[in-house]
């Protein structure tokens, strides 16, 4: 629902990074989005296309790599994938777990011309 705001933030960060390098154009933005952030890639790409119009990122490809939810069990030290939002260790049944992935929302790098 708030993809537009997220798209605007992506544009701001990418343009600032590109301008620092004196770039004329941004052709691609590579980002990661954890599953817990509830980002709908198609919707975000659509919103990005709108906010990027008339900027140096106009027409840039927004590559969104989705990151699955993973966790570490503090009880038995195992690492596992969290499925269906069940925050419980599949090995020992403990609920003392720390998330290790799935909450990211980060721009990794951009490609410029």
């Amino acid at each position, binding site marked *: *629902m*708030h993809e537009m*705001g*997220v798209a605007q*933030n*992506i544009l*701001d*960060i*990418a343009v600032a*990074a*590109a301008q620092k*390098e004196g*770039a004329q154009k941004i*052709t691609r933005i590579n*980002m990661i989005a954890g599953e*817990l*952030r*509830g980002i709908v890639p198609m919707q975000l790409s659509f919103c990005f296309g709108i906010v990027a119009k008339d900027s140096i990122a106009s027409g840039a490809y927004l590559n969104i790599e989705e990151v699955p939810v993973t966790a570490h069990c503090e009880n038995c030290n195992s690492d596992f994938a969290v499925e*269906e*939002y*069940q*925050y*419980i260790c599949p090995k020992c049944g403990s*609920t*003392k777990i720390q998330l290790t992935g799935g909450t990211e*929302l*980060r*721009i*990794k*790098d*951009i*490609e*410029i*011309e």
Partner: protein
Amino acid sequence: MLYTYARNKTAVNIAAGGFRMKINVMQDVLQANDRIAAENKQLFKKNNNLVLNLMSSPGAGKTSLLEKTAELLAGKLRLGVIVGDIETTRDADRIAKYNIPSIQLTTGSACHLDANMVASALPHIGLDKIDVLVVENVGNLVCPAEFIVGEDYKVMILSVTEGDEKPLKYPMMFKESSLMIINKVDLLQYTNFNLEEAKANARKVHPGIDIIEVSCTKGTGLDAWIAWLTEHHKKKAGSR
């Protein structure tokens, strides 16, 4: 052809006449929000405010809970409220009747409050005269969980008329909240809401979540909520 241009830059493609370069960015998309939230948090710490980000779907009882809270905290802790709504000042008007500082933020169309909107209200609310500041977010079970505003805790309300499966449908909200208040328990007999099922579902997505059952209209269970507030305010004041 690929070669390292500099430590954080890689030329990824050299086509005839064109030069493309990859730049390492590694920045959180919501860093602008997070930075302002951190500033808000500093201000809250300075003024010794316990700050709660109160979230729920529309009509779950956020404003009703705050009306009761204003009544029950009177003479004990000084309450302040920042209310976010898409339109109207109805909620702030309801709160203002209790003679507590309240500010209405109308977001226009935004589905959540962000740190910047909350920051804009802070100079006007008188933080030095507030012990507990509640930021009543826009009614929505999705977006508000994404944006921190500088709060100590997220608190959410689930009302029995919404259904006991909501924690599984909107896990982020329940995962992020320290406390889930189940409101409208007086209506349990008229619905197919299963209280134990709702709690079990919430604990599946957030094993450590605190849960309090209340009815704002009948006034039941509110003592547990006031105790929760008092305890967490004490904890915050003690950590200074």
